[in-house]
């Protein structure tokens, strides 16, 4: 079981809800992922009331929602968006994104820490989307965050873990803190590798939503995340430079012939 702000979840897969071919496929993909937490967003509502239908669909999944502040570029925007999200989604949870640059969608860690402080003081439970910077992580915890979500690679890039060393360092330093790799993964093997490092969960969207078969890919990530966690708990073998026979050598037929 992983736990976030006192909420235990059996699934370590948090899935995004954006960019699917259809609402029906979104629903099936969420189901296939086994996720108990889905990310959602707020957008300007027009006359059509498109948001209402989407919200009904999400509620039917029975999943807990984690609203994001995607697209916000200042502390003020992020804070107000979070406040609106809390009212609409009736949850203190917020995935805090404050984007600093458009090509990489990299977090602005300065604005991020400040917004995290403001929101925590206002009673929010913040899930900060951050880099793999150790000092920034410490400041986010000092600001009251009880979860950290470092990136694997830029959002939507599908590159996997750009800096496994730094992610391993983060894990070693914050052994008690729930860590979630958020963004940049493209393949289940990327997610498994992150979990093998001891991460608590994976959050992703594009790799599933934009796959040829989103439902099949959602199941693939579900299994890979389960596998990576199980491996972490089972205690992997040490890497060796030389080979070691799996089949015992003793008693090999024609032994003398082999000498």
């Amino acid at each position, binding site marked *: 079981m992983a736990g976030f702000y006192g909420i235990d979840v059996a699934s370590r897969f948090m899935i995004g*809800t954006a960019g699917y071919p259809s609402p029906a496929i979104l629903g099936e993909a969420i189901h296939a992922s086994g996720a108990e937490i889905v990310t959602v967003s707020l957008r*300007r509502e027009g006359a059509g009331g498109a*948001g209402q239908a989407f919200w009904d669909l999400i509620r039917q999944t029975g999943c807990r929602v984690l609203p994001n502040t995607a697209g916000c570029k200042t502390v003020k925007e992020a804070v107000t968006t979070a*406040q*609106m999200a809390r*009212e609409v989604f009736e949850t203190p949870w917020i995935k805090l994104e404050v984007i600093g640059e458009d090509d990489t969608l990299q977090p602005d860690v300065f604005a991020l820490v400040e917004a995290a402080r403001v929101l925590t003081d206002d009673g929010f439970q913040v899930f900060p989307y951050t880099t793999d910077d150790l000092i920034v992580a410490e400041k986010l915890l000092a600001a009251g965050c009880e979860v950290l979500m470092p990136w694997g690679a830029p959002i939507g890039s599908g590159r996997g873990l750009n800096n496994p060393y730094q992610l391993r360092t983060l894990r070693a330093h914050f052994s008690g803190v729930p860590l979630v790799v958020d963004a940049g993964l493209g393949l289940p093997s990327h997610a498994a590798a992150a979990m093998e490092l001891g991460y608590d969960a994976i959050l992703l969207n594009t790799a599933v939503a934009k796959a040829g078969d989103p439902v099949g890919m959602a199941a693939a990530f579900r299994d890979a995340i389960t596998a990576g966690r199980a491996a972490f708990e089972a205690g992997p073998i040490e890497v060796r430079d030389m080979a070691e026979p799996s089949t015992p050598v003793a008693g090999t037929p024609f032994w003398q012939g082999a000498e």
Partner: protein
Amino acid sequence: MKITVNGATYETGAVTLAALLSELGHDGAVVATAVNGEFAGRASRAETMLRAEDEIEIVAPMQGG
């Protein structure tokens, strides 16, 4: 009077934020609002008087990553 709703200029007869939402057909809809960049909670909408030039945000749940 002229205000801005979701980034677009809009001529409204509404006096309060609550009235504006009705005028726009959002009665009973799951939406949140902000006035001039500040969050305006559901409970406060009836007392929130609109002024010319006000910038109103009306948002609803949408897909997100």
